């Protein structure tokens, strides 16, 4: 197993994914711009959160990274190996290094198979070990995620949502991956269950040094769990920084509006702070606005934003995709 450069386990370089939209014979082809030039590097043992609203491309990103869908452009580098164009056979061997936990534990486990065989499948596919050894490993994995080893004989429908999500995590752990992509891993769970699963993920990270790409729309949760945060809007990263510096200030107008709009479970705090209420909805990712993609909703937009598409550039300790970020006093408070 070759390591990545500088402790980087997973790298996305300029990832692009366009889906063709059904069109008539004589109409020009139209595309959903799900991802447009997304780049980041995930370091060993860290948690990088991807946040954004629906249509920002965060789930497509997860699928492209896992090669569950083929990216239109760019590269995916896993542990130093470019896996973007690997054939299914070669890819199969490398899959053990990168696993995924999905949002809905009711949909992500096949109801026809026992927990034991669901968790044992990755071991069976990647390692030639006798069945007894496999059963022992499954029992161990179930204990690791806080389930009784006896669950191996049960079926998914006998488990609660939280227990199912633990099974999904155990399946991901079975092949000792370096990276786990967590695609909204708790948003389908009851509030009182979410903390259990988040704590489990954190414990596993501390023990096994796994890096998480943590996709979520829950901003409070993201602030809690991640080391760095990338904010996405319409297929692009608009701001990427340390969670600490994000907490201090936000430089992109969209991140600022997004974090200010999230309701806070504290009546005093919500009375104090000023919310930025954006006008309108997220535009359709089919033929997104030219220039800056956020300009149609941005309270601070200028003429330049329509003409010129801003690049993702370094401002202080972070990356921001805005022409004016970093100018003193920007974004100014709204009256």
């Amino acid at each position: 197993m070759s390591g990545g450069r500088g402790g980087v386990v997973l790298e996305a370089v300029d990832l692009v994914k366009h889906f063709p939209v059904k069109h008539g014979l004589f109409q020009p082809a139209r595309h959903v711009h799900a991802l447009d030039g997304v780049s980041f590097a995930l370091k060993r043992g860290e948690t990088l959160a991807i946040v954004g609203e629906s249509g920002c491309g965060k789930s497509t990103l997860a699928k492209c990274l896992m090669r569950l869908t083929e990216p239109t452009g760019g590269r995916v580098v896993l542990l130093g190996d470019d896996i973007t164009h690997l054939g299914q056979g070669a890819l199969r061997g490398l899959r053990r290094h990168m696993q995924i936990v999905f949002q809905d534990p009711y949909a992500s486990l096949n109801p026809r198979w026992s927990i034991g065989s669901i968790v044992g499948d990755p071991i069976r596919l990647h390692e030639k070990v006798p069945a007894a050894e496999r059963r022992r490993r499954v029992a161990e994995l179930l204990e690791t995620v806080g389930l009784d080893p006896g669950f191996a004989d049960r079926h998914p429908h006998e488990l609660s949502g939280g227990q199912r999500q633990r099974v999904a995590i155990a399946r991901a752990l079975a092949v000792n991956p370096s990276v786990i992509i967590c695609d909204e891993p708790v948003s389908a769970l009851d509030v009182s269950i979410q903390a259990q699963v988040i704590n489990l993920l954190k414990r596993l990270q501390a023990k096994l040094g796994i890096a998480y790409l943590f996709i979520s729309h829950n901003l409070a949760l993201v602030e809690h769990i991640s080391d760095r945060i990338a904010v996405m809007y319409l297929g692009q990263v608009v701001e990427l920084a340390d969670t600490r510096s994000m907490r201090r200030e936000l430089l992109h107008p969209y991140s600022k509006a997004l974090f200010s709009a999230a309701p806070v479970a504290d009546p005093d705090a919500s009375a104090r702070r000023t919310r930025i209420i954006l006008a309108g909805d997220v535009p359709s990712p089919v033929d997104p606005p030219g220039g800056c993609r956020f300009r149609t909703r941005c309270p601070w937009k200028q003429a330049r934003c329509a003409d010129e598409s801003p690049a993702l550039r370094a401002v202080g300790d972070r990356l921001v995709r805005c022409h004016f970020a970093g100018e003193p006093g920007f974004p100014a408070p709204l009256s």
Partner: protein
Amino acid sequence: MSAVLEVADLAVRFRTTRGTVNAVDGLSFAIGEGETVALVGESGSGKSTAALALLRLIADPPGRIAAGRILFEGRDILALREEELREVRGGRIAMIFQDPMMALNPVYTIERQIGEVLALHAGMGREARAKEVVELLRLVGVPAPAERAKQYPHNLSGGMRQRVMIAMALACKPKLLIADEPTTALDVTVQAQVLDLIQSLKDRFGMAVLLITHDLGVVAETAHRVIVMYAGRKVEEGTTAQIFKDPRHPYTQGLLEAAKWEEVEGAMLREIPGAVPSPFDMPKGCAFSPRCGAALPRCRESVPPLVEVAPGRPVACFVAQERAS
């Protein structure tokens, strides 16, 4: 403050092949004029069932309102005749739902769906309706209302659809708006818009609002008073400030902690162990006792009654009651 709605001992049962389920059990509460009350709970807490029961919208079979009184403007909704009930529905009490895509009929125009309410409760003619619909859409902030009125739900975005639902609810200036998870299906920035809209319209028309939600953030930003439900029962009630600053029930405490993640940076969160019990397999005694760190032996024996631990603070928990006395 006089009460718009008074609910007493409401019980809703569902008959299923696996037995009878008490979805809502002995629920009592009141909503004052112009007040926003939040009904908070997780899935299976019975909060949405309770909301539907207020307008007798529970499908029977399998559901049935087994007991209780629902006093609205001095009349018991449960005793109304069918025609009287229909006058209250959509006229005096309006309701909006979680998923505005599913809640609008896909094959009729916006104008027709809002117009229906105006025809029914205000007896408006065709032309008056068309004008009023455009007015209502403008009121809820739908851009280009005249064109939107002629469109179908699938032409609109999620946020716009919820605005249409609100316009429909407001059509007859109801006294009470029941909002069942109105922003759960929406994105954060759109959620902020819709909450803002409900707030401003409420102030303008002096409506009372019953907000059903699982999101404590939404509660903190909008509600005056909070009712916390668990497994079909009310476990705690208080003003929003009281609930958030001084939660008494261990379940409320746990929920609040789970909702304020950003404050526990790096450290482990306090967990509520276990899972919400299945309605077919309710634990004996307090339904929360198997997951409660503070549970006493008697919590597993008998169901704790609601007792005021402070003025206006009923809590259904033996531990909290002992601490208070």
